[in-house]
Each structure stands twice: as C-alpha cells, then as structure tokens.
C-alpha cells in the first residue's frame, strides 16, 4: 500500500512544488497530443464524410481499411513512421526523427482512423434526407455537409475525445519516433515507462496520475461543449 500513498504524495509534490521538469513534460505532452488531435480531426472528418456520403467504387473496402486502422497497434504506427523518417527513408531529408514533430505525426496517424471511423458512423446516422432538406432551403453542397456535421456534433465530439485519448495515452510510437530524450521528447507516458524501469514506482505512478488528471480535464472541456444546454 505504501507505494500508492508515496505516489499520491509525489504527484501532489510534483504538481504543486512547481517542479520545472515535470511541467515541461506536462506541457510537451499536452502540446503534442492536442496538436495531433487537431490534425487527426482535420484529416479524419473529411475522410469520414467521404466514406459516409461518397459514392465511389471501393468505398466499403476503404471503410474496412479505416476500421482496421482504428485498432492499429501504436507500435506498428511507430515503426512505419520511424522507417519513413529514417535518415535513409523516403522522408529522411526532413530530419524529423526524434523530434516532437515526429511524435505529432505518429499520434495523428493513430488518431485519424479513429476520428474517420467514428465520424463516418456518426454522419451515416443522420437521416439522408436531412442533407437534401438543407439543400432544399438553399444550402450549397459544402454548407449542407457542414449542417450535417453540426447535426452530428455529439458523436463527432466523441470522435475527438477518442482521438485525443488514443494520442495522449500512446507510448510505443512516442518512444520509437521520439526517443524519450529528456527536455526534448520526453512526455508523460514515456517518462512513466522510464521511471518504472528504473524502479521509481512512486514517481511512475505519480506521472500516471497526472496523465489521468490531464486526460480528464481535456475531456471535461469537450464533454461540457458536447452536452451544452443539457442538465
């Protein structure tokens, strides 16, 4: 039991002592995961719309691929991104490996299929005639798509939450493409892994608790936006 009490104490101390390194890790975690979520949403929503409303050959195959991507092991994504960004890889010239940008790419790649898959399902739930009705009131094609997305805002925000959850909790890809370099690419998950391997269980649990708290706060904001106007 002691390890849990120690962890709680450590977490409290880390949060309220203003420990510079801890706040750097928290800040980096948030920056990387939120950016990745925004990118995942920006890519995933249009893809979800295309899969939901598009009429093209191979649509169902594409949807099945996206659904597979929703369960893709982060380690595999990390591996693919690493290979792509490797010095001799196709994108090696970008010199991005072991930078926060590489971690954003990996986390966005993990989140985008989640956002796309949930979005496609959410948008298909809306009555197909809804879009026709919006066009019949003067909405352009694009405007009518937007109206459908606004109508599906509850599940779409759920898609954002799923995307953020996958990004912020992910550790394998972050380790591989980021390298867990102190002060540069160390985030809460990779720091927790490191501390565990060093035997600093209390510190690792503290980092885990902070991660949970962070995820809760972000999701609280999203949930409040989602459930606006309801008790």
């Amino acid at each position, binding site marked *: 039991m002691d390890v849990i009490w120690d962890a709680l104490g450590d977490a409290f101390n880390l949060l309220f002592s203003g420990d510079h390194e801890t706040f750097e890790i928290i800040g980096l975690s948030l920056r990387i995961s939120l950016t990745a979520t925004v990118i995942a949403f920006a890519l995933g929503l249009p893809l979800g719309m295309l899969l939901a409303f598009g009429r093209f050959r191979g649509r169902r195959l594409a949807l099945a691929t996206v659904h597979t991507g929703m369960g893709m092991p982060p380690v595999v994504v990390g591996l693919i991104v690493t290979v792509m960004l490797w010095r001799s890889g196709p994108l090696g010239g970008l010199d991005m490996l072991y930078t926060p940008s590489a971690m954003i790419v990996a986390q966005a790649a993990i989140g985008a299929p989640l956002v796309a898959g949930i979005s496609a399902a959410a948008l298909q739930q809306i*009555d197909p*005639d*809804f879009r*026709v*009705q*919006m*066009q*019949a*009131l*003067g*909405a*352009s094609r694009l*405007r009518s798509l937007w*109206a459908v997305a*606004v*109508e599906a*805002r509850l599940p779409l925000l759920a898609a954002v939450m799923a995307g953020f959850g996958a990004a912020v909790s992910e550790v394998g890809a972050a380790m591989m493409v980021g390298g867990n370099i102190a002060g540069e690419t160390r985030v809460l998950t990779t720091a927790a892994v490191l501390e565990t391997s060093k035997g600093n269980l209390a510190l690792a649990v503290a980092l885990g608790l902070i991660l949970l708290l962070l995820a809760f706060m972000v999701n609280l904001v999203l949930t409040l936006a989602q459930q606006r*106007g309801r008790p």
Partner: protein
Amino acid sequence: MSSPPALLELRGIVVDAGGRSILDVPQLALPAERTTAVLGANGAGKTTLLRVAGALIRQTAGEVMLDGAPATPTAIRRVSAAVLQRPLLRRASVRDNAETGLRFHRVPRAEARRRAGEWLERLGVAHLATSPAHTLSAGEAQRVSLARALALSPRLLLLDEPFSNLDAPTRGELLVDLGEALDATGAAALLVTHDRHEAAALADRMAILHAGDLRQEGPTAEVWGHPSDPDCARILGYDTVLETDVARRILGNGVAHPLALRSEDCAAAPAGIQMDGSSLTIDAELRRLIPLGSTTRVIAELDGRRLLATAPAPAPDWLANLQPGDPIAVRLERARARPVGAPFPAADEPALS
C-alpha cells in the same frame, strides 16, 4: 381561367435508377402563383418528380426551365424551398430552425429573426419559438418546417406529402392554414400527394402520375371529373371502372368510353324497383357487406367485375337479409358516372346528360 406563364417547366424529364426508368414526364409546367398538385399512389415517382423540380437530384435526361430558359440547379434552388414528407428539423430551437433557410441565403440575423418569427406566428407556433425542436409533436414540427420554407418567400414552394404523417384533425387544420398561406404569398407551389382530397383542396391544377408516367394534367375541376384512363380514374378515387361493353349495356349504344364510378356516389338499393330518369340503375349481384362505422361498404359484382356501393350503417334490414349472390341494384345520378378517356369538354356523352 387562363394560367399565368410557367415559372418552372419540366421538359422531357427521364430519371433512371437501377437500370430502369422510374420517372418519365414529357412536359409539366408549373404556372406562377398557382398550386399544382401531382397525384399518385405510393411508389409512383412523386418524390422523384419533386426533387427533379427542386434540382435536388439530377435527372437522367431532360431539362428544367425557369422563367422560360434552361436553369442551373443553383438558380432553381435560389428561388425554391421545400417541405419534405418528414419534418427534418435541426437539433436546435424552433426559432433557429425557422431561420435556417434565411441564414443559408445570407439574410442578416435580425431580419432572419423577424421574417421567421412572422411565419411562426402565422402558422400558430410562435409560442414554441424557444423550445427545442425535438420536443415538438408531428403536427407542430410540420408547421415549423412550413414556416421555415415560407420565411424564404420562395417563388416556388415544393411540398412533398406534407400531411402524410399527421392525424386527421391535425391534417385538417394544417390544410386550412397552408391554403391561406399559399394565397397570401402568391408563390407557385408543387404539391405531391397520394390524397386526392388534399390535392383538390389546395391545387388549381392537377397532374396524375402512375408508375413513373405522367398520365394526365389539367385544371383541377377538369381532371377531377374526367379521368383519362382507368389508372387515373382509380387514383382520382373512382373505385369502380366498367369497361365500354358493360357501360353500353347499362346506358345504351351511344357510350364510347368506359365508365368510372365512386362508391360514395353509388347507393345500394333493393333490386327491381323502377326509378325516374335522372338516376342510373345498375343491376348486380351482392358479394359482401363491410361495415365501415358511419357507412356500410357494399361489394357487388357485375359480369364478374367488382362494383362498389354505399349503404347506411347499420345496414337496413332488406340489405342485411340478402345473401351473397342475391340480386341488388346500385343507383347513382347519371352525371356522377364519368366517362374514362373522353376528350374535354366531353362532347360524346349524350347518354350521361
């Protein structure tokens, strides 16, 4: 009554789906400031026709003309507004819903609020303005849907069975309010419906669609009494159509067309009683009686063809005592037996006058 020039005209419209034609309309003009009803059974292609007219789906062939010139879908949508069968409201307040179309047309918010509010008021749902749309009853929701379309002051209002999901009293009230609204706006309207009474109540002109084909079109009074073929007759509520040879035996050799009868015009009577000349008596055999509450539906047979008539409810003793196969007379005013496919005005109906 001469019709104003056509606001919208469908020319040579064909719509194919799944390798077969689901709509074929050689020509249909929607006059400005008039209501045109398209009457047809379920699956006749009414919704497809309405959506082609509103540029909401693309036709396989043919052209939609606006003010006499070929029009782009955008141009058509700019002047039209539609009310679909189910009121598809946004997850928002009634007021926001009523403003939706105006906002799409970039009407400033204050003006949109004023115009939407005006129509919510006229359609009797202004008191619900701040309610969430999903709390409305079907009738209220359809009123909001109508207000949303009318607030746009469209030149063409497209109405796709707007009453079909409503109970009878709600439908009756909304029918009256919609009629007044259409008169007030001066918009042209296209109403597609399976209900001939709605069509007759609202429309100046009537067209009949059967299995995707436009079969008949003209002023409501003309179409109502002059079905152009047996399918049109059935859609217009003539539930008995007697072929020409049968009609001749009843009315004499002057008859050149099949006869269409409405069961509500046909009264069941005891067989063998002579009547004065203004009535037409058809001798038939009784098959069944069906009590319908306020009336009794009498199913008779004439040369193997069904003939429907009406009797009071409960059925009078003379009728209740008849057995299937017993002779029965069906009586109606001569003018109520309508020739099918006769030219209008019908010059060749001497036997009916």
